[in-house]
């Protein structure tokens, strides 16, 4: 067993973004940062880890294929365990706390769980954040407004019957009236919420009650509309993304891996290369990347690593340089005796 380190770069071919909980600011969805907006953003390692784990899951599904009766041998619980490490059936093996090599047998049987882990079994794979190599490689994208299409293109009225034109003008006027009312109620709510921050417990409960009453008021205002209860016209938040062509430093590691485990990991990178997309807003053509890592390992007892080779992935293919890396892929492909249902 040996530790493999992957050091390299991810280059964006399209804008790259991620939408995180709590990432909305007055200026739109922002990328995660280590500090305020003056510090550089990064692309989270967890999003990269997820993409590679899901690719590894597909490698296993393809490898196992159908059983003798033409059935898929996995059920839903197997998939959740492999792809996310979630035990929906509640039947995964538990190990004694603090036991050395706990789960060694499970790791041998199921290299996918050994690599990516589950609750109680640490994954051997560590994936770092992708860090921009220099400033000015990110910006705001998207944004704008959802409008009413008939206002943009009046020729569309030709396709509407007169009664439908009336219906449209009723919807537009109802929405305009409701929008003004709801804006006023929301401003009232915001003021109450501000007061709640400094209020004592009893006052807070009273204020919360008022906020809830205003919620009901908004709801009833919406209900007054004859149809199209939610606003059609609305601003669309912009989002921050790394620009196409941005270069991000990236590191990964597989700790104390067997050749078969390393082979599965590299096979997952190959699988990922068939659709090398990360992050969100794929509908806006975001997320396409290419990547290149040099792979090093440690020789026992030495404090400096040796280079094993290089892996490049791009939409035009995968390049694996280094005999030992290719041998790892072959070792996983040829190995027998795995049980990917083991957990």
């Amino acid at each position, binding site marked *: 067993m040996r530790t493999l380190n992957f050091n390299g770069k991810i280059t964006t071919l399209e804008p790259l973004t991620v939408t*995180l*909980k709590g990432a909305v600011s007055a200026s739109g969805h922002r990328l995660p940062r280590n500090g305020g907006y003056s510090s550089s953003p990064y692309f*989270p390692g967890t999003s990269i880890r997820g993409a590679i784990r899901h690719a590894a899951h597909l490698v296993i599904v393809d490898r196992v294929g159908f059983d003798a009766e033409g059935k898929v041998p996995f*059920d839903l619980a197997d998939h*959740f365990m492999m792809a996310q490490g979630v035990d929906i059936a509640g039947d995964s093996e538990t190990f004694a706390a603090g036991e050395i*090599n706990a789960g060694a047998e499970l790791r041998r049987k199921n290299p996918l769980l050994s690599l990516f882990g589950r609750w109680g079994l640490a994954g051997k794979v*560590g994936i*770092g954040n992708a860090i921009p190599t220099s400033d000015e490689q990110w910006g705001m994208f998207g944004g704008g407004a959802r409008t009413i299409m008939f206002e943009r293109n009046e020729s569309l009225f030709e396709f509407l019957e007169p009664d439908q034109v009336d219906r449209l003008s009723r919807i537009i006027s109802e929405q305009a009236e409701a929008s003004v009312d709801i804006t006023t109620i929301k401003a009232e709510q915001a003021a109450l919420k501000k007061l709640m921050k400094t209020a004592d417990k009893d006052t807070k409960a009273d204020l919360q009650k008022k906020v809830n009453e205003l919620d009901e008021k908004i709801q009833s205002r919406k209900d007054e509309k004859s149809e199209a209860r939610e606003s059609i016209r609305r601003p669309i938040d912009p989002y921050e993304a790394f620009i196409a062509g941005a270069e991000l430093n990236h590191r990964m590691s597989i700790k104390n891996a067997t050749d078969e485990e390393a082979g599965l990991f590299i096979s997952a990178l190959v699988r990922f290369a068939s659709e090398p997309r990360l992050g969100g807003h794929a509908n806006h053509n975001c997320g396409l990347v290419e990547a290149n890592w040099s792979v090093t390992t440690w020789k026992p007892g030495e*404090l400096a690593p040796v280079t094993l080779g290089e892996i490049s992935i791009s939409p035009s293919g995968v390049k694996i340089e280094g005999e030992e890396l290719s041998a790892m892929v072959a070792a996983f492909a040829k190995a027998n005796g795995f049980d990917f249902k083991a957990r």
Partner: protein
Amino acid sequence: MLNAKPYRVIMKSLSPVVISGIPPSLDGVLYEAISQVIASNNPSEVLPALRDVLLFNEALGVFHASSLRFGITPEQGVSAATSVRCDYFSQEKLSSAMFSPKERGGKYSLIRLEGGPTKKRLTSRPAYSAPYLTFDFAGDADAVEKLLTLTHVGVGYDYFSAANGEFTDVRIIPLDEDISISSGDVAVRPVPDTSGLDGVKGLSPLIPPYFHGEKVGVVYPEPVRFNLITTLL
């Protein structure tokens, strides 16, 4: 160990650090680094190697390695952040063609993503952002620099799986005195509560791996400590 001298390691912080109670200490980070180098998780193999890198204080039973102290600049202090993780399945990741709905008595014939164990999960942990991470230690500066630079380690909770506490630009500077265990009468790392040093009282192992092992009564420094980086250089 021979020739152990006092040093300070300063690293540029890249992602927020998750601290769960007791602040992370340098010996924990180096323990993980060594376990990657020697390809073993066995404390009886990792700890002797760690003793070649860090000075060990036999009286207190701890390594000369301080807990984390953030370095701040006039432009950026320590700020609250969150580490967010999200798990969900989309059509491309899991299709009904991949599983047998009749297995387990047809228990899983539908994939429900709205609730139950298969729901979309979003977890967030409180974390801290600051421009620099610093530790004081007594030991072998070259070995520490190599271990922090060439292995895949970070500071605090969930680096390996979620890339919290990632750092770069490791720099080590010599110090005039060893302040890796205490500064004045105040503990700067977990030490036995019988040591007479001041600090927050709690329970913790004294040596890594800190996630398991026998917990003893300790005093430890405040979880979030910081200084202007110019005063730490």
